[in-house]
């Protein structure tokens, strides 16, 4: 205790003890030297690299996004084109269909007209033929009928009636034969 009291009397806490000063200096420069030469350069390099890596990653992501956007645009425009194309083709098909229908109708009409014309011409020809044959036959028929009437006895009215009937029946038969001949 006594030597401590003596020490207290001569101790000024603001003045350094030189051994401590020297040790303190050495230690501080050891710490500083280590951090300045080894510790911090290493970690700063790593921090830089990490910064680059993160920034590079972000850049890459940006690029990918831009590319995706571009592809999307492209697809959209392609889709639009396809839509226009389809609409155009539909329109064309409709036009073409209408044209075909019109053409067909025209052709059918022409055909039907042709058929009708042919039929009419044939009918006219047949009629002409019928008229001609009638004209030639009516005379001979009338002569034949008259000769029969004259050849038979005129007294009997009943017989006359039968004769007329037979004649008409003959005529009928003849008529059907003529029509069948014309149809053939």
């Amino acid at each position, binding site marked *: *205790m006594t030597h401590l009291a003596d020490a*207290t009397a001569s*101790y000024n806490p603001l003045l350094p003890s030189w*051994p401590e*000063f020297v040790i*303190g200096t050495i230690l501080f420069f050891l710490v500083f030297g280590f951090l300045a030469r*080894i510790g911090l350069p290493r970690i700063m390099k*790593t921090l830089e690299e990490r910064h680059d*890596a993160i920034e590079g990653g972000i850049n890459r992501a940006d690029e990918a996004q831009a590319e995706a956007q571009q592809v999307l645009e492209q697809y959209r425009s392609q889709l639009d084109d396809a839509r226009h194309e389809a609409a155009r083709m539909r329109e064309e098909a409709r036009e073409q269909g209408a044209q075909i229908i019109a053409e067909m109708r025209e052709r059918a009409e022409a055909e039907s007209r042709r058929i009708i014309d042919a039929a009419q011409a044939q009918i006219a020809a047949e009629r002409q033929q019928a008229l001609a044959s009638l004209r030639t036959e009516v005379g001979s028929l009338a002569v034949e009928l008259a000769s029969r009437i004259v050849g038979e006895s005129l007294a009997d009215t009943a017989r006359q009636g039968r004769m007329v009937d037979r004649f008409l029946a003959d005529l009928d038969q003849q008529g059907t034969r003529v029509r069948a001949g014309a149809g053939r």
Partner: protein
Amino acid sequence: MTGALAAAAGGGCHIFSGCGFPAPGLQDFIWTPFFTIGQFQFTKPMLLAILSALVVIGFFWAAFRKPKLIPGRTQSLGEMAILAVRDQILRPSLGRKGDSYLPFLVSLFFFIYIMNVMELIPVFQFPVTSRIGFVWPMVFTVYFLYLYLGFMHQGAWGYLRNMIPAGVPWPIYIILVPVELLRFFIFQPFTLGVRLFGNMFAGHLLLTIFTLATWYLLSLSVGLLYAVGSFALAIFVFVLETLVTLLQAFIFTTLTATYIASSVEPAH
């Protein structure tokens, strides 16, 4: 072990036992050496200083030995530590171009902080920075650094001229010139060192007083009540000191950054 601590720990010196309070004082900062080599005495503060340096170097060695892009736990902690110094201390006063001073400021901050924190660790229980011999080396380093930078960046005449604020009526200069010169050459380094030393010195004294008093007042009497009060205060001072240790390291480093900045770029 110091005298007062030895006396208190040694025995039954309690209140009402005819024993005076072994008040702590200067003697608590004087250590009997562990061993002596000739004139050289190896004491506890020296051991703690060496330990502090080893802790700082060891921690940053463990953290930054093989730095990885994706950091492990220790590396993350180390990165946080140096980035905190950079963003909270260096950048505000020096800006981006001051990054080359980062190793210096990081060394100052963590060396001082660990030496301070020795105060609070059981068994060690002594702030190395309350021995001013460990403070002056750093102060002198800072002092010579900012003088050197000032003369380098502003020229001898320019540096001295920039110390004096311009645009003052001339009679004021009679006072202003010596005050400003004293500020740069004497007051700044002196206060820088003594601020750190004084805070840690006072903090250690407070802690010692209240822990010793808790022990001294402890007896089966009304003294028990005092002891409890003293113990509560000791706890309070301990919590306060956890803040002060960090704060003093921060202030020392921040002021260093400011001084460097004023040397590199003259004040406006």
